[in-house]
């Protein structure tokens, strides 16, 4: 028997859309195009950029440079926006960048409790979990529990600092350079830098672990 069940979206991982959502999206695009407020080709271009060209590989290059070049690292920590601009990574959702460094004493982790602020130029668009209610709620009250869920267990002596992003300031975590990576090139080092290590819900991969 047909059961007219439009299920609801309590779960952030449920991506099935209600017919209303699909129709509303089409209607808005159709009306805005008709009124000359958007150009569908510009929309395609935006989608291509954020689907294929901007992502965490950008941030990984910045981190690898900081690992091999102490002067660059100093600059990155002093003025993240300017230092990152050298790579051509700037603009939309990354105009004011603050880079926070992980050390044997301090582990940094980034959240946006209010919404989904995230440094687009260096990390691309945020993953669903970053935008999800559980992460936004728990990162600030139970950061070690959250880290454990991501498989990261820190000694009690390590201080965990949680940075709550705002519409203006976007944070990038500079993860610790892994042990045994002394002989790697900058490009090889970049391979060890995961997206999560730059959000602070992960650490850099050990040499040999990179895919």
């Amino acid at each position, binding site marked *: 028997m047909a059961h007219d069940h439009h299920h*609801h*979206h*309590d779960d*952030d*991982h*449920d*991506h099935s*859309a209600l*017919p*209303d*959502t*699909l*129709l*509303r*999206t*089409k*209607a*808005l*695009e*159709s*009306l*805005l195009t008709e*009124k000359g*407020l*958007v*150009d569908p080709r*510009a*929309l*395609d271009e*935006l*989608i291509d950029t954020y*689907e294929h060209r901007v*992502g965490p590989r950008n941030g990984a290059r910045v981190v690898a440079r900081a690992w091999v070049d102490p002067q660059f690292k100093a600059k990155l920590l002093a003025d993240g926006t300017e230092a990152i601009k050298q790579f051509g990574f700037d603009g*939309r*959702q990354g105009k004011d960048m603050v880079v926070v460094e992980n050390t044997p004493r301090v582990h940094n982790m980034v959240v946006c*409790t*209010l*919404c*989904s602020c995230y440094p687009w130029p260096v990390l*691309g*668009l945020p*993953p*669903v*979990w970053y935008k*999800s*209610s*559980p*992460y*936004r*709620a*728990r*990162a*600030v*009250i139970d950061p070690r529990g*959250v880290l454990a*869920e*991501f498989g990261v267990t820190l000694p009690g002596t390590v201080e965990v600092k949680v940075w*709550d992003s705002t*519409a203006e300031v976007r944070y990038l975590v500079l993860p610790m350079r892994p042990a045994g990576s002394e002989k790697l090139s900058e490009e090889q080092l970049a391979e060890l830098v995961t997206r999560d290590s730059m959000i602070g*819900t992960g650490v850099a991969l050990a040499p040999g672990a990179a895919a």
Partner: protein
Amino acid sequence: MNGAHDMGGMHGFGPINPEPDEPVFHAEWEKRVFALTVATGFGGEWNIDMVRFARESTDPAIYLRSTYYEKWLLGLQRLLIERGHLSEDEIARRMARIAAEQAAGGQR
């Protein structure tokens, strides 16, 4: 503004469950909502704070059960209506027309 979006420290949402090898978008409509929001908003008509406020003005019960890009869609629609670019009526009529076209197409 203190509303349902102000989630820091709230209890009861359960585990995070990160998705391995997550795609950037999960559906075609999400791409269109993303691009529509960026293309209209960043042209200077409104700024990020206004977009956020529009999303945060969504009814809390709807906000909490909406997926991320559904929140974007509702926020964008609110701004377009508030700014006089579109009316609710116009959107409803266009939705009905597209639905009718799809139904006609599906019967062939």
